């Protein structure tokens, strides 16, 4: 396996998962806000649905996406099966409930009176939402970290809808599976380390953002 190939695979892993998480964030956060601010019948049902979605095995999602996008499937005309786009869609569906669900939990942990106080100080609706997001920033980033960690290390769905096609839809996880199957354990472990390093770097960045501006870790000092 050439270095160029490894770089290409790593880059694809990063872009596919990054894009999926970005999309999940852009849709999941507003969904969570909507869910948090509105009261309606069936709200609990939707929350349970999202929580179930968080635990859905990627292969199951991969299977459903594949069934949709196969040529004779209902969305086959889009010709997306075995393309990076299909992988982004599959990972988006994995990441969305994680982002929406954990964001919702993060909102719930913000004191309800805080929004009332913001309103009472003259905040408009949009300003209240800004406050809500800012106050739950730690939780939002935890949601992003969980979502990214989930999809970057996921193999079932990308294998099914991406096909592990060399130079096109092959990502770190699928090539690890393949190298393992072929008995190339050293290559598999090397790729695992690359995946680990990638995942660590991204999480490190997110964690740094997460704790930026926090005065201290809010826990007792053990020294």
């Amino acid at each position, binding site marked *: 396996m050439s270095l160029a190939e490894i770089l290409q695979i790593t880059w694809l892993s990063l872009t596919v998962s990054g894009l999926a998480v970005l999309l999940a964030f852009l849709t999941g956060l507003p969904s969570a806000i909507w869910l948090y601010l509105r009261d309606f019948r069936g709200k609990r049902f939707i929350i349970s649905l999202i929580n179930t979605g968080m635990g859905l095995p990627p292969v199951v999602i991969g299977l459903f996406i594949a069934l949709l996008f196969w040529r004779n499937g209902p969305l086959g005309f889009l010709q997306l099966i075995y393309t990076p786009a299909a992988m982004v869609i599959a990972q988006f569906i994995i990441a969305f409930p994680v982002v929406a669900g954990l964001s919702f939990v993060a909102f719930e942990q913000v004191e309800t009176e805080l929004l*009332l106080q913001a309103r*009472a*100080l003259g905040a*408009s609706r949009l*300003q209240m939402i800004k406050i809500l997001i*800012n*106050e739950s920033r730690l939780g939002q980033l935890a949601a992003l970290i969980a979502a990214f960690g989930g999809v970057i290390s996921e193999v079932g769905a990308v294998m099914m809808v991406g096909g592990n096609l060399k130079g096109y839809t092959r990502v770190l996880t699928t090539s690890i599976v393949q190298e393992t199957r072929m008995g190339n354990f050293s290559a598999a472990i090397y790729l695992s380390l690359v995946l680990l390093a990638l995942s660590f770097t991204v999480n490190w960045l997110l964690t740094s953002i997460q704790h930026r501006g926090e005065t201290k870790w809010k826990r007792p000092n053990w020294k």
Partner: protein
Amino acid sequence: MEKTELEVKGLRLTRGSNWTLNVPSFELRKGECLVLFGPNGAGKSTFLRVVALLEEADGGEIYYQGRLIKDNNRTELGRRAVYLLQKPIFFKGTVRENLLLGLKFRRFEPSEQLKRLETILGLFQLEPYLDRSPFELSGGEKQRVHLARAFIIQPDFLFLDEPFNGLDVDLKDVLLEDFSRIRKSIGTTTILVTHNRDEAAFLADRIMVMIDGEIVQAGPVEEVFSRPATPEVSRLIGHETLVEGITVGEEQGLLKILAHGQTILAYGSAQAGQRVILTFRPEEVILTREKPTTSVRNWFYGPVEEIKSFDRLTLVSVNCGFNLKAIISRASLEELNLQPGEQVWAGIKASALTVAAP
């Protein structure tokens, strides 16, 4: 003529099955400080949130400076008011950011923000805490920041829900005085909820007593304090003194009660040997330096423990074996020239005493 700043007509809000907030009419003059007084669960906070436009009533009209509140001007007019929750809740960031938040919501120019910040820092002496997190501050400091972030907006209306609750006494006295001074200097029309009589007496231009969602009495402090409209108000307002004793007999149609080694005469009926509780209201107590020979039957003697002065009234605590409380006018206080630790006679008519079984 003082202008009507806030007006409420036919306000109704039903919560649950047996509780209704019902305020047929209510007015507040410019610059006035109204203290909303009442027991817990009387609907004071709800009323406050409704007039602060944070909750919608089932029916009724609210006018801010003559303008009827409607859905389309709710946010705009709402910004003329600031409501502070009882608990000082802060947002992420420094004290500075918390103070400026209300101005940011209203999109004030940065230069104006700075100007106001400086003014408010001076008034509340918050300079040293500016770049700290409000979460690190002490209770009293937090409360100052809490109040300061309302005053910095210089709102037309200020609605406060028990802002001095849970503070220790020394701190509270200082803060009460600061608050009163700053409020007067800015001239903010204020409604303040409390169930603390001292606060009410100190701050209020007018007192409004709310019980079970209805206004039962409203008027100047002296009036409400000295002439409670109903027994409920009286129980709520009065600094009642409680004395426990034992009935020992009767004398000229009066009950003879032994309490703290003294004999007290009161109207009532009780068997001899029965334990009773005597209560009387502080404004019924007469204080003198020398025991006079009047028709007053009960006299107690003891040292003055505490003197608390409000705008026009003074609350005096006397230790006569039990803690006796008296309210006298400022004028009488000056006449008596009382100091803590000095001995004083406290008289109370037999007719002013209430006898009850414990």
